[in-house]
């Protein structure tokens, strides 16, 4: 089981990979488990989850830049100043 992460990430040594592949070829349960975890990863990777909405993106950018500029003015252009 512990090797599963390595196997999924293609980071196992050749011998272990072979052993796992042989096992997977014979064990339907492990095959279903491996296959469904692999599909899970593909789904997560492609899901575009938690994407930043456009309007919030500009709000964040403006918020940050306003505070940065304000901080710099207060400090006379010194960029090591504290915010807020």
């Amino acid at each position, binding site marked *: *089981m512990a090797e599963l992460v390595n196997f999924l990430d293609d980071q196992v040594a050749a011998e272990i990979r072979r052993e796992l592949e042989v096992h997977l070829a014979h064990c339907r349960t492990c095959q279903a*488990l491996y296959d469904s975890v692999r599909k899970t*990863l*593909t789904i997560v*990777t*492609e899901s575009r989850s938690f994407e930043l909405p456009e309007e919030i993106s500009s709000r964040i950018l403006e918020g*940050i830049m306003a505070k940065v500029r304000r901080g710099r003015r207060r400090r006379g252009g010194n960029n*090591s100043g504290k915010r807020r």
Partner: protein
Amino acid sequence: MPFLPQVELSETFRPFAFLREHFGFIPNLFRAQTLLPRVIEAEARIVDTVLLREGALSRRQKECLLLAISAAHRNTYCVTAHWEMLRALGMADRQLRQIIGDRRRAGLSRADVALLDFGLKLTQHPTGVSRVDIDGLRRHGFSDEAILEVVLVSALTDFVCTLSEGLDAVPDFQPKRIPSTSTAIHRPARGKTAHRIGGHTHATPAPYLPAVDLSPDAFAPFAFLREQFGFIPNIFRAQTLRPDVLEAEADVIRTVLLTSDVLTRVRKEYILLVVSAANLNTYCVAVHCEMLRALGMPEDESDQIAMDHRQAGLSHADSALLDFALKLSQRPTEVGRGDIDGLRNHGFTDQQILESIVMTGLTGFLNTLQMGLGTVPDFEPTRIFGVRTRSVAGILESPRPPGAEIVNLPPAPDGLMGATRTRVAGVALGEDADAGLVARVRRGDVPAFEELVRRHQRRIYRTLMGLTGSPEDAEDGTQDAFLKAFEQIGKFRGASKFSTWLTRIAINEGIQRLRGRKRQEPLKDDGRDDAKAYRPRHVRAWDDNPEQLYSQAEMRELVERALLKLPTMYRVAVILRDLEQLSTEEAAKALSVGIAALKSRLLRGRLMLREALAPHFVGRGKGTARV
């Protein structure tokens, strides 16, 4: 505004006259490439043979394909253009809206819906395409010529979508909005793994479509290809049903790939290699490794470039060029003016940048073509590209050589952020894509900081959303993380990449917010619930194409809900590794834990996530087995 300057070309420039004659205007996509007229000429020939010439499919069927696939790519330029073209062919707005919204209710024939389904699968899930899909089209009555045309039009759509994103072409008409519920959208691939092949061949069966015999002695494009490459690549042999298209393709190869006056041929082969590998295209990688070998590059080096060009010892400029090509091919909508300026800072001319965009588009075209035709590699590939668990984003955002650590972070809370903080002077600043901007910020350049925010805010927001599950916390946390980074940039020594340093600050911000909540989840490993103690339950086979069961919006909601159900310590490991695509090493660093601990959390997190998603994806009629 397009990214690159344009020059005035005479209205009698042949391709322009041709385009005006057929479209009634000269699309901005072509006007945006006037720095390289030869490229426009070659592209116009492809458009002519694939789209405009009468063939087995009607113009309307081809335009519908272009519209649906462009919408799946979320490409406003192409959606707008082909919407207008379909309107000119007599289709109503309502029907067009359905084609990009719910094509089954667009009043199309079942055969035409099947056509769109195939084009979408080929461009969105190319590795899933098989002979079964081709037979499906045949059952709907499509001839081999028609099927070849679907493949060609799909490949052309990928080409023009990449071009328009890379050039930021301005829509020729009032831009059309693409609904967020549009056709399931997945980029072809965001990651790759590849298995080195031992002594035996994983033989791909014969190509899907029959080919007629064309002799290189009688057919000029084949004579040309044989002369240039020493052989006629199978991808071209598989298209002999359309000799006119082959002529146009040979022309593009001659004009775009084989020239060396702007970008060198080797650099273009690099682009082909890296983009094809990201698209998991074993065929194209094998062919172009071979071509690089013929140009004097050892096989190991081209193999390394395909696997991870960052580790291939290329110059910073070459590496930046390939980063750009990868981003344009895998995350086209995120390409911005900053990326173009980045290339200029590396000394690339606008003409070279234009050619790299065209080369990236051409690679997408060839990759889609190959996947749709099922051609057999001309050479035994050294790797088969397959399952995507290691991602392109991982390469784009991964640290350079390992051995660097973060310094000067605010004190980390116990638990999730362990205590290890080593100071190692490892990665030189020059290797970080943000290094130039960071140096400018340190000199007090505020606009440079704005660019850093633009580059990283999406990633940081995603990480914080995943960590806190609250849009408010994610928004405030993102702001605070960047402000903290700005405050402390004087202390950032470049011992790690800027993005890794920033991620750690953001994770600290997220954790502080979680701690502020009344009901706080344990962030600490209590020793009981490690991966060894965890056993997955009810393991059942999943549907073969789970990603096709739900729309993009539904899928996203399912994943977000499932992720937020995970305990924080597992969730954050999965988010950094699988959503943000950090390498294992980098994710471990960002969390200040050892690699073994990260892997253990990752395994547990992935298994729990699988279990949370399983009810939505288990295949029908398949057996259950208990572990």
